[in-house]
């Protein structure tokens, strides 16, 4: 450590140098002096000791463990929980931005009533009035009550909602949100039920794999578990003493996984499953590779003509043949069915077509998420889209007396307007929103009873997908509730006390008692502890419960199933009138729109387009030249179901016959950042209301569109205008020395 030189020393040096100069010729003892900041910047002053709380991230359904740094009662930083097996201390951008859900300036601060739906004129009410209104509404609706929650709902709250619904004689809560819909949760679960006899989400050991074929799975951005697969990708790419993993991405538009892929294949939208089947067929016919894999391929591969698939998909037959060879000879190959696979045709068959490749591979890197460690622990299951249609039908017919909407589900924003969900809402006498911020659905609600955000509330989550071992996350308040909000669990318990049918089903005093009762029943976990209090404390301290038994093997049993030949994709809209395919995707920052109210997310550049505060219609370079449009020109995108206007972003990594539009913006509510500062289209406007052929998924990937110029344009807020490190704009070619 160098000796510090203070001001006095400097004066002495000055004096000494004056003397030295006077003496002349004498060597100055110090050839140079140390310059230090005159005033110590505050980075060197520490303001107190931080307290860290372990909890669970709720920014997507995955359930990463977080630790939150709090100082003086303020939450100042969220980090990944280093002990948590899912994310190993890491966190994605959405998880990092969770603080801005807590400290959003536009949160609803107290319960309100809206006399005229959609008027946005709110009258403050007391919590007693709120409970009374909820109670009378539930009592009046009785079996005509409906509950709608998003996938990131706490297990105990879903449990309470279910018990309440059952006591009232109403159907169980519907778990549906755009994130799980576009990721294909329901179809993945249904396909695993069909293939392996168990309804569970699939898990993929990407970290162990050496060859991964990804069928439009954005596993580095917004698919099943962004952070887990991000961590896994690090090992997949560079691991000591092992080969660098090889990734082939089939997708019309390159997302993050496409950008990182060794081979990106711009296949025609909708042909992903066909390509998977062609690869299976080529393995069966090729004969190369291990005999057991070839035998399984001959058993499982449907009778598809690879040459025809090559023409349909636009992937050269030679590439298909080489990929089949790469896949079958790899040590641990994997195939990932992404969300776009589930957006058209028969989603379950399409997922199965891809999963068959994993069955052929017969490796241990692929399996099903384990069941909850206790039957009593409630785990949300993504509802098939067919159930959504049935509920909307019931609403329209006047069969729903009260609709309770919890969390980020936001059906008014998430469902295609062609479904006329708002009209159906008008037929429901009582609509209650529990979201801590006024979203598009809350605008059409009568009662807005804000719950606390996930950083202020209790809960547990059975992690799904979990990789090999059951995990139960704990969620605890890291700060005092900011506003006059009330936990929805407590609210339900209180309201139920006045309803004769429900009081017996919900006898608990408060939600914490419900939660502790459930957690106390867990078998001893890795963190041990004797007695319910110690186990509970360890559960909160470490942020999760993990079975002491350790991880189980991942390999699922392959049940018998006849291979189904997936038909060629069919699209809504005539190819002459609507010449372009529409490709909707969830961007990594905004995801399904729940990032739009957080400046850290909506004001950070999108990785591919570098655009902030906006979303665009992305058009391929040569197509843009043909259409005569360039960056910022506003175009009208018309589908058979609706139209949006959006500025153009000219993207290099896209098919020429495809228009890509990200979800996330186009908000009319959700606070100032989402609705006023940010601008962009909501692509769900262009989608039809139908389910796919299996009834599990919204058919969101089968629409054609046309593009017309409006003659107007806007300035794009894009970061690539900034000068990069190589002189020109960032938007230029990559320096060769990095390849």
């Amino acid at each position, binding site marked *: 450590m*160098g*000796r510090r030189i203070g001001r006095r020393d400097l004066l002495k040096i000055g004096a000494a140098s004056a003397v030295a100069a006077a003496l002349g010729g004498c060597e100055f003892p110090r050839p140079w002096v140390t310059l230090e900041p005159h005033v110590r910047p505050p980075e060197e002053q520490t303001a107190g000791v931080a307290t860290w709380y372990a909890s669970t991230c709720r920014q997507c359904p995955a359930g990463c463990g977080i630790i939150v740094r709090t100082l003086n009662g303020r939450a100042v*930083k969220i980090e990944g929980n280093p002990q948590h097996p899912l994310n190993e201390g890491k966190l*994605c*951008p959405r998880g*990092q931005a969770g603080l801005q859900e*807590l400290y959003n*300036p536009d949160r609803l601060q107290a319960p309100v009533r809206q006399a005229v739906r959609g008027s946005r004129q709110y009258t403050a009410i007391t919590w007693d009035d709120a409970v009374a209104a909820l109670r009378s509404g539930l009592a009046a609706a009785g079996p005509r009550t409906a509950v709608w929650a998003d996938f990131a709902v706490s297990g105990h709250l879903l449990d309470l909602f279910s018990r309440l619904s059952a006591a009232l004689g109403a159907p169980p809560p519907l778990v549906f949100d755009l994130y799980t819909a576009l990721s294909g949760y329901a179809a993945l679960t249904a396909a695993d039920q069909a293939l392996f006899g168990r309804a569970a989400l699939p898990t993929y050991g990407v970290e162990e794999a050496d060859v991964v074929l990804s069928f439009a799975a954005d596993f580095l951005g917004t698919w099943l578990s962004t952070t887990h697969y991000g961590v896994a990708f690090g090992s997949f790419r560079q691991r000591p003493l092992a080969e660098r993993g*090889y990734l082939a991405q089939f997708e019309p538009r390159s997302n993050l996984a496409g*950008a990182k892929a060794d081979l990106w294949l711009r296949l025609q939208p909708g042909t992903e499953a066909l390509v998977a089947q062609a690869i299976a067929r080529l393995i069966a016919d090729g004969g190369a590779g291990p005999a057991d894999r070839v035998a399984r391929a001959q058993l499982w591969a449907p009778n598809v003509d690879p040459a025809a698939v090559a023409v349909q998909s636009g992937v050269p037959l030679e590439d298909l043949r080489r990929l089949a060879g790469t896949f079958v000879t790899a040590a641990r190959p994997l195939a990932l069915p992404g969300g776009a696979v589930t957006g058209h045709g028969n989603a379950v068959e399409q997922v199965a077509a891809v999963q068959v490749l994993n069955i052929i591979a017969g490796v241990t890197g692929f399996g099903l998420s384990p069941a909850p460690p206790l039957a009593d622990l409630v785990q949300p299951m993504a509802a098939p889209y067919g159930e959504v249609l049935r509920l909307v039908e019931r609403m329209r017919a006047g069969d729903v007396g009260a609709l309770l909407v919890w969390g980020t589900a936001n059906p008014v924003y998430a469902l295609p307007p062609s479904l006329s969900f708002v009209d159906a809402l008008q037929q429901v006498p009582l609509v209650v929103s529990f979201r801590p911020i006024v979203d598009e659905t809350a605008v059409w609600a009568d009662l807005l009873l804000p719950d606390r955000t996930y950083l202020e509330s209790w809960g547990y989550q059975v992690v799904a997908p979990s990789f090999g071992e059951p995990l139960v996350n704990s969620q605890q308040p890291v700060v005092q509730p900011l506003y006059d909000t009330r936990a929805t669990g407590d609210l339900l318990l209180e309201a139920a006390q006045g309803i004769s049918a429900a009081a017996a089903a919900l006898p608990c005093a408060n939600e914490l008692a419900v939660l502790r009762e459930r957690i106390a029943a867990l078998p001893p976990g890795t963190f041990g502890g004797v007695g319910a209090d110690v186990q509970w404390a360890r559960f909160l301290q470490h942020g999760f419960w993990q079975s002491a038994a350790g991880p189980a093997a991942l390999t699922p049993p392959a049940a018998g199933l006849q291979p189904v030949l997936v038909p060629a994709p069919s699209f809504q809209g005539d190819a002459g009138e609507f010449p372009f395919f529409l490709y909707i995707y969830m961007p990594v920052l905004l995801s399904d729109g729940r990032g739009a109210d957080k400046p850290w997310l909506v004001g950070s550049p999108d990785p591919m387009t570098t655009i902030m505060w906006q979303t665009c219609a992305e058009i391929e370079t040569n197509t843009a030249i043909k259409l005569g449009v360039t960056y910022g020109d506003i175009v009208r995108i018309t589908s058979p179901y609706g139209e949006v206007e959006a500025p153009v972003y000219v993207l290099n990594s896209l098919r020429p016959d495809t228009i890509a539009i990200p979800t996330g913006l186009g908000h009319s509510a959700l606070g100032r950042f989402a609705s006023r500062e940010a601008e962009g289209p909501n692509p769900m406007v262009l989608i039809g209301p139908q389910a796919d052929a299996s009834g599990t998924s919204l058919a969101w990937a089968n629409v054609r569109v046309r593009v017309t110029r409006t003659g107007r344009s806007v300035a794009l807020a894009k970061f690539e205008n900034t000068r990069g490190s190589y002189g020109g704009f960032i938007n230029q070619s990559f320096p060769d020395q990095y390849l």
Partner: protein
Amino acid sequence: MVKPTEAQHKWTMVVDLDKCTGCHACVVACHAENNVPIRNKSEVQANRAQHWIRIERYWTGDPPAIARFLPMLCQHCNRAPCEPVCPVYASVHSQRENLNLQVYNRCVGTRYCNNNCPYVVRYFNFYDPYFPAPLTEQLNPDVTVRTAGIMEKCTFCVQRINRAEQRALVEGRDLAPDEVQPACVQTCPPSALLFGDLFNPESRVAKALAGNQRSLRVLEELGTEPAIYYLKGGKSYVRF
């Protein structure tokens, strides 16, 4: 008298371009840790966006082109071009931390340093930061909020380095290898970012760089001696 090379630590970052997925977790983590303001749309349209760490997006090939990501942040040069041009010594090479730091209360906003930085990683506060309440609650009390007219840039999370050093001092021990992690490195899901003391052979950066054929530094030919090493993208073994 010590020479600059006799500093105790050589804080170094390693960026593995083969692992970086461009997910922007580092960008958001940096905003959260260092109170970096988010610039609104009109400010971004004026090319005044502000991110201490940014993911530069380049293209390879003609359309259809593949995107390549390059995380870019202050390179903490040993011979930093931003330092000699500052008329008020606000851009200094801190002797104690052996880092290139900005002294905010000296800065008078000449922007000479910005002009002279070949990496374009210094950001000028053209506007006052804007945190509508209660977003002020998210601010990290360890880090100053900079006002308009001030130049700012990545500090390698110097507040974390200082905290760790103080903790080690109180506990009467040396810093453990990899005890200090900046916010970006801490959160990076694929561990594309590594941080540590290059003087300590046990640190992850020293191990990652030892004999690594993929390592290079950006614009090394300028002689700036950056403290950030990039590991270039690996070629896939194609078993076609």
